[in-house]
């Protein structure tokens, strides 16, 4: 299932208002289904903390332990903690999650992330406790 059809499916399942809410588990289920394989938190952690041929990793801005706030690698601006257990606003809006994966994967990998990569990262983030 592509990401687009996954988001479409979410909209059918829940009334699509201006900002459709979803739980992290729902988002993870969608990405795992699109990947066609279960997510791996260990793979997600490795992916998040490694560089991928460019200057930055995900951790460059979000920190290696994203239960704490991060700091933008270029501007120094504080970035709220990414783990849903540390900040309930995180991983709750499918469109926002997609927007940031699109931009940040482009910065870190020079391409979009695959549904499997997104599922792995979400799976790791959801297991983190502050």
């Amino acid at each position, binding site marked *: 299932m592509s990401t687009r059809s996954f988001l479409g499916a979410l909209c059918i399942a829940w009334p699509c208002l201006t900002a459709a809410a979803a739980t992290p588990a729902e988002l993870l289920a969608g990405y795992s289904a699109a990947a066609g394989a279960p997510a791996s938190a260990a793979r997600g952690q490795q992916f998040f903390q490694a560089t991928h041929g460019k200057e930055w990793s995900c951790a460059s801005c979000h920190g290696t332990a994203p239960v704490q706030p991060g*700091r*933008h690698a*270029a*501007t*120094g*601006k504080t*970035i709220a903690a990414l783990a849903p257990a540390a900040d309930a606003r995180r991983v709750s809006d499918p469109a926002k999650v997609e927007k940031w994966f*699109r*931009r*940040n994967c*482009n*910065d870190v990998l020079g391409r979009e992330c695959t549904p499997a990569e997104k599922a792995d990262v979400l799976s790791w983030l959801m297991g983190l406790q502050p």
Partner: protein
Amino acid sequence: MRRGSTRGRCIVAALLTALVGTTAAHADEHRARRVPPPPEYTQECGACHLAYPAWLLPATSWQRVMDSLARHYGTDASLDAAQAQRLSAWLQANAATGKRAVPPPEDRITRAAWFQREHDEVPAATWALPAVKSRAQCAACHTQAEQGDFSERHIRLPR
């Protein structure tokens, strides 16, 4: 004597004109400060850096910035087209006039002549502090920058 008093009046008139001009520019700035940016501007642009007040860059600079969001000073800051259009229109409408009307190099606020002049007393060691990190981080010293207030009484240099 007569010539002198005419010249005196001319000087007074010139001073008054200059004063009124300056006051008008300040009034513009203060008005701009009082108009808060749209929430989506603060949310979208303020995620990675201070949601810079529109009056810090001229309209032509904002146009170029908004036309190249996918390559935004080394990062992908792309928005969907409708949202980019809305924010761009707001930035154009509230862009800098007067002494800040000249597009700075690379459309960077921090490279504008007025910026460099107004920060020439900041020691290099202060710029290099971890709490500052980048010249883009106005709020490191301008404690009310998030509210669009850069006045001197709200400056606290970190140590």
